[in-house]
């Protein structure tokens, strides 16, 4: 079963890369952007076929490795 995870930086955490991307977009003429925040995206093909169990496992993965909860939030999405 395929599960996707999106990791984003928490609101208060500075994202210098996002800022630079925003500036670059601005320089290219995309002047209607308020803010850019960069994150991470994972596609996980789990052996588990039960959707609930698979999601629980992925949630554990997020907490233990994929995200650092001091600075990041995670969101699990069905692929």
């Amino acid at each position, binding site marked *: 079963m395929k599960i996707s995870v999106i990791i984003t930086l928490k609101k*208060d*955490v*500075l994202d*210098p*890369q996002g800022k*630079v991307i925003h500036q670059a977009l601005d320089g290219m003429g995309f002047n209607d952007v308020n803010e850019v925040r960069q994150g991470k995206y994972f596609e996980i093909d789990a052996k588990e076929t039960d959707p609930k169990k698979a999601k629980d496992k992925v949630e554990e993965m997020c907490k*233990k*490795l*994929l995200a*650092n909860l*001091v*600075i990041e939030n995670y969101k699990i999405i069905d692929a």
Partner: protein
Amino acid sequence: MKSSVITFPGSNCDRDMDVALKKFGFKNKMVWHQDVELPKSDLVVLPGGFSYGDYLRCGSMASKSKIMQSVINFANSGGMVMGICNGFQILVEAGLVPGVLLRNKYLEFICKNVFVKINNKDNAYFKNINNNVLELHIAHNEGNYFCTSDQLKEIEDNAQVAINYCDQSGEIKDTFNPNGSVNNIAGIFNKEKNVLGMMPHPERMIDPYLSGEDGSLFLKNLINNLK
């Protein structure tokens, strides 16, 4: 005094640390990250480098490697564990010291000498050291120390800040903050002060002909404190 330096795939300051520790009298052993047991040690060092290519987040994979469970147990039983640079990143990812290290504020890899002020000498790392300011070397891309305001309050209440970036005279100002770290923090302790994580490399400042000797001061003092 016995020490152990852990080598992870991608560590590159492990041998420098080995040379430095031996120079000041430690009997040092190199320990591979896939080993399960730590040799008997008075000090364990997580060295600098780019463990696991800095994939995912710096230090995140290394913090889950086999040897780390033994390092965590050793630290929790009061053992001295010091993480330098990437080693500091591994310590935060392992949860042995609070906070995280983000990408440097201005997105540049910083490689230069800095001054740091010792904030707390009531611990085995800095006790009896004469200097208040040390000149050490930093070389990192992710050294921007960050923690939540609640964590910061807790860290400060427990006197867990070890060193702050400053100028030669010891003045701590934003101007002397190379990477955007909260309150110029360059190194912190765990609550019990037996675990120290810091971005500067003392092992790079042990030769008067190549660099300075403030790393020598730190390491000489450390081994004397452990005796």
